[in-house]
Each structure stands twice: as structure tokens, then as C-alpha cells.
């Protein structure tokens, strides 16, 4: 790429000193996203705990129209025509249950775990074998019925040491003998090249990048955590959370933001779009992960109450008295959070004020309607 093009794409500050020596200072805006991985505390026990799993599933707000959209990854030679059936009420209930189960399968969250430790155990040292060959020998146990993770893969180095292979060699050999659909042996250029990854993210193909990362890498690989962290930060800076809602990746995104204590952007977006019940759920998630909210216990109790109400995909026109009470409690809880723990106080405060006014109008409208219909 020419220097001019490099300047155009990456420059934030350009300083050209017209002295004896010309100095051009180029700072790339892409460097503001720093990849991170879970290499400190293990997030798995918290991630897999049932309370947090329920909260994350509720935050993804599954819209079945998006979850069950047509995908062209089946490799079937012909398309299937849709089936129309006449069902009784009980049969309809059974079909709805089946739909819920297949939605749960499609929305299964990729695990959030700590980075794996390198494998370094020597099985035997045979210096008598030195000079036998100049190449390493890799031995793989391809017996049927053994899971890829527990497969025995060892290597004999030219200096006679027999050791277990490290994770990258294991993954490569497992892919050669037992290939997984969609996984490449050679690393795809979208992950190897930073530019290509960022061009995909700038075109907002977040779900595509995350899906490919899930297929290409294991969840405990450092490269997977690096790619996903870059993607989550890009989504956070551009506030494009809606693109990942109703997909399997929203849970890990929310968990990542909460773990690193930068969920305020998400909170702001929730309040702005009027999803204050989900904002309360986000608060209880933060309390469950870190436990450092002042009104943590309140938010927990309120969150449990919210979980009993059904999922709100769109704003309801008709509000019952219980709805109004619950929403007022949510607003108070959020107020306390904004005052105490938020990092975007002014913006969130303004958004909450806007929501309060809008909600007041909605309450008056629904109360007026009830009076007019005579059901008050």
C-alpha cells in the first residue's frame, strides 16, 4: 500500500516538520483496540453458574424470526419445501416446545474459559536415538470412540526426547484425521491479517467473524480470545449491540463487557431504547460477577421479579398496574446505579430523564384508555 494511502487510512495526527529533517508522525486509529484474553482469574465458574446463564439468555432477547432465519450451510443438494400442518391445541403446544428446544440449541453460547496452559510433559528421554533421523516423528492414536481432546498425540524429537505434543500440533493433527466442517488447517487470512479483520469489522459483519472464530478455534485458545475481544470492543465503541441480539454471541459479549467493567455503553443503549427491565438485569449481572454495586441486593431482587415477566420484543401499548409498578421500581434502581457506580453519568442521566417523560405519557395514555373502555 502506498504511503499516501497509509496516511489517509491510519492517520490521527500528522506532523510534518519542515526543518532539516522531515518528521511524519502516524498513529493508527486501529491501535486503540487492544486485544485481551482471560489469563488472570478463571471466568468459567461464574459463566456457567445457572443464575448468570439465565441472565445472559434473557439479555439476548431471542427473536425467533432472526434465530430461525434461512441459512445456507446445510450442504443439502436440494432445498426443502415448507410443510403446512393442521394441529390441535395440544399438538401445537408440543410443536412450540420443540421450537423452544431448537432455539436453545441454536442460541447455545460459546464457552468463556481461561486460556489453556502449554503442554510440557516429557514421557521418556532416549539419547541412544540421536542421529537416527533429522525429522520429528508424530504419533497419533486414531482409535474410534476417543474424543479429540483426550486423543494420545506424542512426538519423538531428533534428540531422542519423547513428549506430548502442544495444543497447536494437536489441533492440526486432529483436523487432518478427523476434520471438523468449516475448520481450515492453514490459518485463514481474516485472522492472520489485522487489516482484513478490521475491514470486516468496519463493514459490521460481526456475526460472521464470531461464527468463523468459533469454528476455527477452541474457546480456550489465546487466538480465539484475542479475536473475540477485538470484535467485542469494536461493537462496544460503535454501539452496534442490536446486530448480535438473538444470536449465540450476545451472552459472551455481555459477560466480557461486565467482566472488564465497561458495560456502561450497553446500559446507555438499553435506557435510550427504553428496555429498562433489561438494564436492571444487566445491573444484577454486574453484581453477580463483581459484587461491587451499592444497591446490589435490590437489583438482585428486582431482577428476579423481571425474569418472571415474559420477553419484550417490542414496546407494548397497553400497560397493566403491575407493569407500571415494576417499571417505576426499575427506574428508581437505575437512578441509584447512575448516581453511584456509572462512568457515563451525564449521558445515562439524560437518557433516563427522557425515558421517564416518555413513560409518564404512556402511563397516562393507558390509564385514559382503561377509563374510556370502562375497565379501570
Amino acid at each position, binding site marked *: 500500500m502506498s504511503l499516501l494511502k497509509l496516511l489517509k487510512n491510519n492517520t490521527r495526527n500528522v506532523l510534518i516538520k519542515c526543518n532539516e529533517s522531515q518528521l511524519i508522525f502516524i498513529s493508527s486509529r486501529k491501535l486503540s483496540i487492544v486485544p485481551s484474553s482471560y489469563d488472570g482469574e478463571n471466568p*468459567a*465458574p461464574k459463566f*456457567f*453458574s445457572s443464575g448468570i446463564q439465565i441472565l445472559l439468555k434473557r439479555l439476548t432477547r431471542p427473536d425467533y424470526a432472526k434465530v430461525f432465519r434461512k*441459512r*445456507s*450451510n446445510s450442504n*443439502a443438494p436440494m*432445498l426443502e419445501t415448507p410443510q403446512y400442518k393442521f394441529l390441535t391445541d395440544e399438538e401445537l403446544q408440543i410443536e412450540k416446545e420443540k421450537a423452544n428446544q431448537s432455539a436453545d*440449541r*441454536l442460541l*447455545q453460547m*460459546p*464457552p468463556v*474459559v481461561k486460556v489453556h496452559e502449554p503442554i510440557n510433559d516429557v514421557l521418556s528421554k532416549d539419547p541412544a536415538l540421536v542421529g537416527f533421523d533429522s525429522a520429528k516423528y508424530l504419533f497419533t492414536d486414531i482409535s474410534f470412540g476417543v474424543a479429540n*481432546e483426550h486423543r494420545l498425540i506424542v512426538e519423538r524429537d531428533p534428540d531422542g526426547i519423547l513428549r506430548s505434543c502442544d495444543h497447536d500440533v494437536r489441533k492440526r493433527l486432529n483436523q487432518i484425521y478427523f476434520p*471438523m*466442517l*468449516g475448520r*481450515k488447517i492453514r490459518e*485463514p*487470512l*481474516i485472522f492472520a*491479517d489485522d487489516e*482484513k*479483520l478490521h*475491514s*470486516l469489522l468496519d463493514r459490521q*459483519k460481526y456475526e*460472521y467473524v464470531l*461464527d*468463523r472464530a*468459533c*469454528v476455527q478455534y477452541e*474457546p*480456550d485458545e489465546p487466538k480465539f480470545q484475542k479475536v473475540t475481544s477485538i470484535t467485542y470492543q469494536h461493537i462496544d465503541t460503535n454501539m452496534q449491540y442490536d446486530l448480535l441480539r438473538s444470536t449465540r454471541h450476545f451472552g459472551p459479549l455481555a459477560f466480557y463487557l461486565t467482566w472488564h467493567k465497561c458495560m456502561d455503553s450497553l446500559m446507555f443503549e438499553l435506557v435510550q431504547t427504553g428496555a429498562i427491565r433489561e438494564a436492571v438485569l444487566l445491573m444484577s449481572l454486574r453484581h453477580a460477577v463483581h459484587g461491587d454495586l451499592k444497591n446490589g441486593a435490590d437489583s438482585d431482587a428486582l431482577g428476579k421479579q423481571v425474569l418472571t415477566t415474559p420477553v419484550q420484543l417490542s414496546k407494548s401499548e397497553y400497560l397493566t398496574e403491575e407493569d407500571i409498578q415494576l417499571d417505576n421500581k426499575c427506574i428508581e434502581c437505575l437512578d441509584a446505579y447512575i448516581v453511584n457506580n456509572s462512568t457515563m453519568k451525564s449521558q445515562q442521566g439524560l437518557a433516563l430523564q427522557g425515558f421517564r417523560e416518555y413513560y409518564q405519557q404512556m402511563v397516562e395514555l393507558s390509564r385514559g384508555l382503561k377509563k374510556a373502555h370502562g375497565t379501570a
Partner: protein
Amino acid sequence: MSLVTSVRMLFKRVTLSDIRTIRNIRFYSDQPSESADDQQNSIDPLKDRTKSVPVETSIRYLQSKAYKQTYGDNPVWFLYRRNHRGGVAPKHTRRSCVRNGVISTGNPCPICRDEYLVLEPRNTKLLEQFISEYTGHILDAFKTGLCQKKHKELLLAIEKAWDQGYLTYDVPFREYDYSLYNKNIN
């Protein structure tokens, strides 16, 4: 006597040949010879495929009025029809339309006939025309009419585009076994 006549004939032959060689003698020069020029002029410019068009030109061509007038909204292979005897076409299309840098067949395939259609990973608008919008499969050469060489180039370009992120596809679903990562279950 015969010796004299033979010597005289020899002398004549040498002098004549000298004149001839003087006329036709070519010293070493940097100018290209005329006979090679004759060969080049005989190539039909419409069939000349020695010069490759850059990708950027091809991308601009796909947005141009000329392209719109030629192909409209259809894919480039839509109106192409192979010439064969009988009702059913042979299973394989021809090996290649271009031989020695020149189109040497009648009815060349949809890509070879238009020199501004370049099969490259960056030329996504052209590559998408050969991928089925319903199944995501790459269309067969039997359907599109491409010669085998261009069909292989197309497969290569699409695979590179998928690898480099110019084109996207629906990624196969990966199911996780939580028991491997969640020690609470075990």
C-alpha cells in the same frame, strides 16, 4: 575447355550471389524485423487476450453504463447458450476458449468473450453472480457455460475471497460440549 566454362559459371554464380546477398544482407540492428510485424497485425483485436485487464478496471466496468446496457440486471451467464448437437449438452464444457493468447473458438464462454470481466477475489460483484442466492453453492460450469479453465479460475477466486474476507457465507453451526469446559457438571 569444360574446366574454363565451369570456372566461368562458378565465377558468375559467385558474383550474382554476391549481388543478391548485398541486396538482401541484413546487418545487426535494433529495429524489429518486418516479418514479425506482419504476424502481429494479423491478430483480430476483438479476439486478442494477450493483455490482462487490472482488477480495478473490471470493478469500475461492472458499475458502468456499458455493462448495464450489455447485461442489464441479469448475471453475465444468463443469456449465454452453448452450441451442441442434440437436446442435451455434453456434461463438460470445452477445455478453454483461449489458445496462445487468442480466442480460437466460436461462441466463447461468458467470461472469455468479455475481456473486462476479471475473476479476482476483490471483484465481488462478479463472483456473487456465480453463487446461488438460495443454497450458497457455486454454480456448475454446465449451468453457467464457462470453459473449464475459467471455471477453475472462478473456484479459486471465490475460495480466496472467502479466505480474505471479501465475500461472506453462512458458517456451519458448531455445537459445544459444556462438560469439557464446565467442571461443575463433572
